[in-house]
């Protein structure tokens, strides 16, 4: 946090001169945002906790009586192979996409940071475009690319001679999850590039010049200067992107709908299907949502600790 830690004393003195006090003014100014925070996030979060410990499905919603069931919803989840599979696939999805985002992010950031290469100016201008594409559109456009009759992936690979006939890509349960990772990484890597690029620009060029005078080669300079100074940003991207990757929904929705079979069921998809499709097992869905939220919160906690230590460059 870079905010100052004390209200300056002149403000305190003014409190007595008829002007509204700093404390009251701060309360008034934050009140609307706080109300929204309570109404749209805090209250529903508690409500969901209530639902997680009650039996809530279409039947109970009709009768209006929600019996308390203790940990039964959580126990049901632990015995539900589809839920465990969804969690497992979420972990694979998160690990793979975050790893790719960081590797590609650092690579592309280094590339666009090159001043001597003229075309990198164009890359710099275009790099943010995938981030601007709505996630649901991203899903649809890639399912068009993957299409088995005329999709451009088939066209490209066939023309290159890699495949002998058109392939039903998303129909293959061994490939489906990876086929969702690609679009997701395509859309989210620009954000990582952005942060890494900002961090690279903050590295003083004197460091490189001094290293060059000392006879350090390109690889050596990267290992000894760039990488260590990039490390705090890698950590931030790692944690931030991990928490968001756990919530992946739109691309799954558009490209595979969880299929084929259960091959691309992820945590958010499981919660959505359980809660909003017949038989509307809202209690179980809420319990699953809490498990997901707790996993993400453990990582968020790490992030807050990280910010506390204050990220500095140079």
């Amino acid at each position: 946090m870079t905010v100052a830690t004390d209200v300056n004393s002149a403000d305190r003195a003014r409190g007595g001169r008829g002007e509204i006090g700093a404390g009251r003014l701060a309360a008034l100014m934050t009140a609307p945002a706080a109300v929204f925070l309570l109404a749209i996030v805090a209250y529903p979060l508690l409500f969901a906790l209530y639902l997680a410990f009650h039996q809530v499905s279409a039947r109970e919603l009709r009768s209006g009586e929600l019996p308390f069931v203790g940990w039964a919803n959580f126990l049901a989840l632990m015995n539900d192979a589809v839920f465990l599979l969804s969690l497992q696939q979420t972990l694979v999805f998160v690990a793979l996409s975050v790893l790719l985002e960081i590797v590609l992010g650092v690579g592309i950031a280094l590339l666009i940071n090159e001043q001597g290469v003229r075309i990198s100016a164009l890359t710099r201008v275009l790099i943010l475009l995938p981030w601007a594409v709505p996630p649901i559109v991203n899903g649809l456009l890639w399912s068009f690319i993957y299409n088995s009759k005329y999709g451009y992936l088939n066209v490209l690979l066939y023309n290159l001679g890699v495949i002998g006939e058109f392939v039903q890509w998303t129909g293959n349960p061994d490939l489906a999850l990876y086929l969702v990772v690609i679009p997701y990484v395509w859309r989210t890597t620009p954000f990582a590039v952005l942060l890494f690029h900002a961090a690279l620009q903050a590295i003083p060029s004197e460091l490189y010049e001094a290293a060059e005078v000392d006879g350090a080669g390109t690889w050596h300079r990267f290992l000894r200067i760039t990488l260590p100074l990039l490390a705090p940003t890698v950590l931030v991207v790692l944690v931030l992107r991990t928490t968001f990757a756990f919530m992946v929904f739109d691309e799954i929705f558009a490209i595979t709908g969880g299929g084929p079979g259960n091959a691309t069921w992820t945590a958010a998809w499981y919660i959505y299907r359980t809660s909003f499709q017949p038989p509307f097992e809202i209690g179980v869905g809420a319990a699953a949502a809490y498990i997901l939220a707790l996993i993400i919160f453990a990582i968020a906690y790490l992030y807050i600790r990280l910010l506390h230590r204050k990220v500095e460059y140079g």
Partner: protein
Amino acid sequence: MRRRSTAARIILSALNLLVILGIVGPLVAVVFGSVQSERALLSDVLNPLPKEVTLSNFQILLAGGPQGDRVFEQASYFPANLKFFPLAFANSVVVATSVTALTLTLGALAAYAVSRLPFRWTHAFMYANLTSRMVPIIVLMVPLYVTLRQLGLLNSLPGIILTEVGLLLPYAVWILTSYFAALPRELEDAARIDGCSRLGAFVRIVLPLSAPGLAACGVITFILSWHELLIPLVVSSRPESMTVPVILAGLVSDFYVFYTLMMAISLLGLLPTVLLVMLLQRYVVRGLTSGALKG
């Protein structure tokens, strides 16, 4: 600056080209898909270039369906929801604009308090904001659905708007706080010595000076609101209150809609935010970095 050898420059240029193709390729696929009929697309599958360039997919969409009894090449049938596409587009504009206006106003007020009037509880408020960004929206959807139903806000734009404001405000407060904190205090202090109230100094000095920060926060909020699928999907099922992402989501399980028509909708759906990023890139970049790194 370091000098690269010619060989290194060629390799780096080639890598750049690869990245550019990777970025632009999928977007070109959307454009190619949207300007032809499915029949033309299928006529020569191995040639990726468009076999015809026609705007009829867009005409059908904007007219709310095929006109008259002319042969309809673009879609074997026209899903009922697509008749509402122009309305959904307007809804998306109304939602994103209202969400941006509300979020900026309330976010700026809160961010100013946090950056200039720090108390122990404003710190707690910031941590609450940070934490709430990590809450998966899916956790909140059932409770929000029930609550909005009780309030009579289901299937209404205000219901969508209020929900999105609540979820985007924490991010906005976070971004704006870092901008306000970076402004020099001296100008405000001078104004206050001249008799300006604190709120007056905020409105007359801090807000104009942080115009770039407000622009950054505003454009990011607009884009995230335009992208939002889950909230309008759960909260509004009536065609009258659908947004563009909801219309698109409705096409997913519909195997009879031609991809060419779907790409036309996709293109119209991604155009506003892609154009915004092209035009206001500088602000977006600064907003995203300050929202993630500082705080």
